[in-house]
């Protein structure tokens, strides 16, 4: 029955990817991109790739989100599209 959870995770990943590209506020986009990375990491942990999963959780969701937020705070927060 784990494939049902996989389906839910995959659908949520597509939704979060679309939302993070759609919102006008760049800080929100960075945070929703962090959510996307964590969902991806959960999926990989379920697929048996634990080493990839915790690297993604630390580096993808953590460091990437920090980079994006620091850039947004140093530049402008508003996006035209």
């Amino acid at each position, binding site marked *: 029955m784990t*494939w*049902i959870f*996989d*389906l839910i995770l*995959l659908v949520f*990943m*597509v939704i979060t*990817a*679309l939302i*993070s*590209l759609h919102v006008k506020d*760049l800080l929100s*986009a*960075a945070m929703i*991109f962090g959510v*996307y*990375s964590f969902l*991806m990491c959960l*999926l*990989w942990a379920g*697929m*048996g*790739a*634990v*080493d*990839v999963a915790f*690297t*993604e959780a630390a*580096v*993808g969701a953590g*460091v*990437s989100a920090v*980079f*994006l937020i*620091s*850039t*947004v705070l*140093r*530049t*402008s927060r508003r*996006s*035209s*599209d």
Partner: protein
Amino acid sequence: MEFLQHIADSFNYWIFIILMMIGLYAMVAKNNLVKKLIGMSIFQTAIILFYVSIGYKENATIPILSHALIHEVHHEEAGHYKEAVQEAHHDEGNAAEAAHAAAEYAAEKAGKYLEHSDHAILDINPDDYVNPLVHVLMLTAIVVGVATLGVGLAITQKLYGEFGTVEESEIIEAIKFEK
């Protein structure tokens, strides 16, 4: 339910294609440089998802051997090696004795391995473990992805210092105006 199961088997690959195209669209069509870089990261994680999906097997576990027998053999070998080394050190200066002890240890190790190898090899079934090769490759890809994201965001900050905006169209306008 059967039909859903069939879809679920290849669902990872469908989602991989969708996510990759979302990322490509963002890189090409979005006007904001930060949005472009988010699109690039989505593109990269989609490709990593594809590779991890290749290595996945049904009813398989993480690629770590968990058989007690192998540990036992290794412990015994370590004990024998310790004894051999202690013996060699006991008769210091006697090179022939040390060489003999080493040879004895090697022969003993080979015998031990043959004795236990039948069980050790029969116990390991590759179908029980997901393929770890793609995981190792994708670990590198994740780190490279973060590095490219960091370089891209650094360039974005530099451009903001130069032009006062992160919108691509406004930057191109300003460059044209300067000329």
